[in-house]
């Protein structure tokens, strides 16, 4: 009955090298690359999650494209984000500190209704763990965030993060307006430049 489709903008945040892109690569393509360089070329991925009631939730996933490195993430990045995954590395205490900074930034810049998941990555390296589950969970509870641990390398917990977010997003109403509505063809209230592009090639100044 309810084969409803929803689309949401999801932004990734976290210190460089905590595995933000790997997490998305695992989620979207079910791949992992040990020697992955910093993100180049593909910073706009989409993936769909189907919930038990057959509702589908499509994530439009924005990667930082490295712009987090020198406090240079543009306001555009946060704009109309419905949800965020803030990633830290469980083997690096400092990365949780950085995650806290990003969460403060989200609370300041993003829409107040944004759903935030704090995600401890590199669970496959649990032997070198520096951030305890208790510590991270306590912080997440205090801030009202979802929390889980993942391994982009083994895939453990990855799909669960996105499914949990999909379940928590308010599906009662269509996402307000948003980056989400943006890609749905014809759905936007404004003008579509790409549509016009078709005419543009034909030397149209003289076709008037």
């Amino acid at each position, binding site marked *: 009955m309810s084969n409803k489709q929803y689309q949401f903008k999801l932004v990734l945040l976290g210190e460089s090298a905590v595995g933000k892109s790997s997490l998305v690569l695992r989620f979207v393509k079910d791949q992992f690359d040990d020697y992955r360089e910093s993100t180049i070329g593909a910073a706009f991925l989409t993936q769909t999650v189907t919930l038990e009631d057959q509702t589908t939730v499509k994530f439009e996933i924005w990667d930082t*494209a*490295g712009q987090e*490195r020198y406090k*240079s993430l543009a*306001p555009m990045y946060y704009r109309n984000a419905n949800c965020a995954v803030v990633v830290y590395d469980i083997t690096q205490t400092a990365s949780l500190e950085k995650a806290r900074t990003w969460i403060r930034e989200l609370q300041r810049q993003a829409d107040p209704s944004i759903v935030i998941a704090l995600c401890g990555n590199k669970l496959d390296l649990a032997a070198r763990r520096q951030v305890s589950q208790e510590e991270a969970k306590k912080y997440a509870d205090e801030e009202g965030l979802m929390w889980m641990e993942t391994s982009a390398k083994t895939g453990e917990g990855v799909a669960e993060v996105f499914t949990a977010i999909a379940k928590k997003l308010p599906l009662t109403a269509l996402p307000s307006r948003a980056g989400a509505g943006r890609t749905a063809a014809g759905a936007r209230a404004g*003008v579509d430049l*790409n549509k016009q592009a078709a005419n*543009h090639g034909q030397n149209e100044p003289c076709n008037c």
Partner: protein
Amino acid sequence: MDEEYDVIVLGTGLTECILSGLLSVEGKKVLHMDRNDYYGADSASLNLTQLYRKFRPNQAPPTELGRDRDYAVDLVPKFIIASGELTRILVHTDVTRYLEFKQIAGSFVYRDGKISKVPSTEMEAVKSPLMGLFEKRRAKKFFEFLQNWRDDDSTTHQGINLDKDTMKQVYEKFGLEPGTQDFIGHAMALYLDDDYINQSARPSYDRIILYTSSMARYGKSPYIYPLYGLGELPQSFARLSAIYGGTYMLDKPIDEIVTDNDGKFVGVTSGGETVKAKQVIGDPSYFLPQDGSGKVRVLEEGKVVRAICILKHPIPGTDDSDSVQIIIPQNQVGRRNDIYIAMVSSTHNVCAKDIYIAIVSTIVETDKPELEIAPGLNLLGPIYDKFVTISPLYTPTSSGQADNIFITRSYDATSHFETVVEDVQDVWKRVVGKDLVLKKREVEVQE
């Protein structure tokens, strides 16, 4: 910072961000820095806190203006002309995926003390008070002539040579009145002064066709505008650059442009560290005489005065339009240069509801610039707050090929971004040595 780059770009204005994005896509290793802690440089859109910090360092924004985050106030009044070159770059680089656009609701022109809409449909043209009945017929013939013109078909030329004849001769052939000439030259061809009249008619023809085809595209006006302000444009190209490996550093004051004994570019010093690169591109503000080199790298060509006005009502006489351009042709107010008004509002997500942001601007002709824009300010009705800037228009003194220092131009007084794109093309050619050819970016969205 001890890596070496192909290109360092200074300033995150639109010109620099387009260049940075295109260079990164081309595979160049780009480091892009800005002294400010926000994107956009002179083409930024500021929130209230940033706006007041810039213009009134000692005053907090009035609480009655609403939430800080609802504001994106442009520093430069420009719109995107729908069929223009910027639109082409936006589409070809696919940065449109980060942006949403809306139309500007109308374009108006000032004549004999009041403003009238530039007709956007046949119906509006028939009803327009801008011309009398007989003049409308003459104008119709003039526009038909332009629309039907084919370079390779002399039967469409009616004895006119667009490349040799002046615009004055073309106007005279169709017997157009001075008021109509003002309207065509300033409200449609968007010339800022009357120098074009005695020059070849070809550029005027191109501009009028650009205007009419842009108008035909979406219907209300020839302009479109990005939601959340013009500052979204540099941000979207910066993202393009970052996606292709460009490194971004904001809040980085530049201490020195380092050159070798021959004056050739070596690197840029910031915070005591020097980063090396083969080439540097930057906006003029990074190359003023006090850049430490003692070289004169930019010249001032003139000044623009701009008054950012916060209104609590739409501009009177515009049918309560949520966004407009108003052109006051120079002849109408005894000036050499036109006065422009550009207004946007909450429809474009640039301010709180029931607030309107108008920018009045012109090229400075006297030593009392603020008085010069009075005819524009007078059209606005009560002004809640006003921020006036007088900005020098800088142009580089050299092509940069000798010293690998490539400087862009300041944002001029035109109402759109066509000259910005010309500058991008010009700098690209100087930096890369080839014409800029836009390739359609491969779509990387995974469905």
